[in-house]
């Protein structure tokens, strides 16, 4: 006897809206001289980001990609010019109202851009999607400004005890321990600051702590900051972008440090992507790139409140 679980989790109108959204996205990039590309979903290596776990084949020989970043940068190093991709990506154990272990990502790279130029381009995309009025821009706040405004604390100089006190003052009761300062910053971002961002118009947060650079370049200064940004709309994180790190030696050091963190945390570590590192050694053009969650964008465009409402079949029904 069927309980109805064979049915789609999204209604037909929503699936039609998804179709239209994909058409607008492709038209935007095609008109701007981008090449649409496809890269492998199953690779011999995977991300070593300590906070992202890859799904692997049962024999452990291949990993489902958590983002097409490495392969797309190999295309850039091979001289592709500006490229974009719309694909499904996979992240183990990420499931909830705003997460599905398999989701749709729009990722694009533009040689010659830095992170601010790329934010300008996202402004134009959001105008085409009628998220922003014609020729308007998103709000832009540095990571430090966001913390100052909401919590009156400097995220670059505050220590763990201050961040803990700040979280407690916000009524957050943490069960267990956090092992580093970045985890406390992440907690405040995820629980307090993020949900209040982009309520009127979408908001960019940029120039992250150098310790959260991921694959972005670090701009020297006091403090040094990572040329990275995130886009928030209605309190939901929609996109993450970098002025991309092109230094192969620095990239290798970061990945090795990430592997050590994973091992220390008792996590398995996929092989480091040597093809990606070879591409950086060959020479990645100075570029900026960003990944945007299509399912979340669609959810917000339609005024829905959870991902299952915009997925043909959510994780439970997949």
């Amino acid at each position: 006897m069927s309980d109805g679980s064979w049915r789609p989790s999204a209604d037909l109108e929503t699936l039609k809206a998804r179709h239209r959204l994909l058409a607008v996205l492709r038209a935007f990039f095609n008109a701007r001289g981008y090449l649409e590309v496809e890269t492998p979903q199953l690779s011999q290596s995977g991300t070593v980001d300590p906070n992202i776990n890859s799904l692997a084949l049962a024999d452990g020989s291949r990993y489902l990609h958590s983002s097409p970043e490495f392969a797309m940068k190999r295309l850039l190093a091979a001289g592709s010019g500006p490229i974009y991709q719309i694909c499904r990506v996979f992240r183990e154990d990420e499931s909830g109202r705003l997460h599905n272990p398999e989701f749709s990502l729009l990722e694009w790279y533009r040689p010659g851009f830095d992170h601010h130029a790329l934010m300008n381009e996202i402004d134009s995309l959001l105008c085409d999607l009628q998220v922003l009025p014609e020729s308007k821009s998103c709000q832009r706040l540095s990571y430090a400004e966001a913390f100052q405004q909401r919590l009156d604390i400097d995220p670059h100089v505050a220590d763990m005890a201050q961040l803990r006190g700040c979280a407690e003052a916000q009524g957050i009761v943490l069960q267990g321990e956090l092992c580093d300062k970045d985890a406390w910053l992440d907690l405040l971002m995820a629980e307090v600051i993020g949900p209040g961002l982009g309520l009127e118009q979408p908001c960019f947060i940029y120039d992250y702590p150098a310790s959260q650079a991921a694959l972005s370049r670090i701009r020297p200064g006091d403090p040094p900051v990572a040329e990275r940004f995130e886009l928030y709309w209605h309190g939901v994180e929609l996109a993450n972008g970098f002025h991309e790190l092109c230094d192969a030696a620095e990239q290798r050091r970061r990945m090795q440090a990430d592997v050590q963190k994973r091992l220390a945390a008792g996590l398995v570590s996929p092989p480091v992507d040597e093809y990606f590192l070879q591409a950086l050694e060959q020479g990645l053009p100075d570029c900026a790139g960003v990944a945007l969650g299509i399912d979340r964008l669609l959810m917000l465009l339609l005024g829905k409140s959870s991902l299952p409402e915009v997925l043909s079949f959510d994780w439970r029904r997949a």
Partner: protein
Amino acid sequence: MATYSTNQFKSGLKIILDGDPYNIVENEFVKPGKGQAFNRVRVRNLKTGRTVERTFKSGDTVEAADVHEAEMQFLYSDGAQWHFMDPASYEQLAADEPAVADAAKWIKGQEMCAVTTWNGQPLFVEAPNFVELTVTETDPGVRGDTSGGGGKPATMETGAVVRVPLFIEEGELLKIDTRSGEYVSRVK
């Protein structure tokens, strides 16, 4: 010791926090773009009934609470304890007053109650939604009134006081909704 990872969190899961059993009411997975993921949960303390919010680092584990709910038959009360029996195994359990709480005033014997146990000890007892009880004391009915619009207090055989229609008399068997404490009907 059984444990749950935050990845297994969902509503209805029973866990131990600070030595007390809790029920997960709501679980939300939260994660900044890149970085540490968290589980923000609303949990209800099964001893006190209080609901609080807690945040867990995703991937952490927490001790499972050995909490079970079973339909058990109420046998009798000796004044200090209320005795229940599993109708299948004939196993008996004694619940003390804090566990029985409000249910005590609705049960007289034989009723099937939902008994929630923690490590085999009763945590709380829920009376059946409807019980049938005899009126032991109420003022005489008022002639002509059949609507029950006004109502009057009536003491039941268990000691519970229920608002009943004016036409109800002592000795009558009534059906009561234990969730609202309201009179439903006469039992013919």
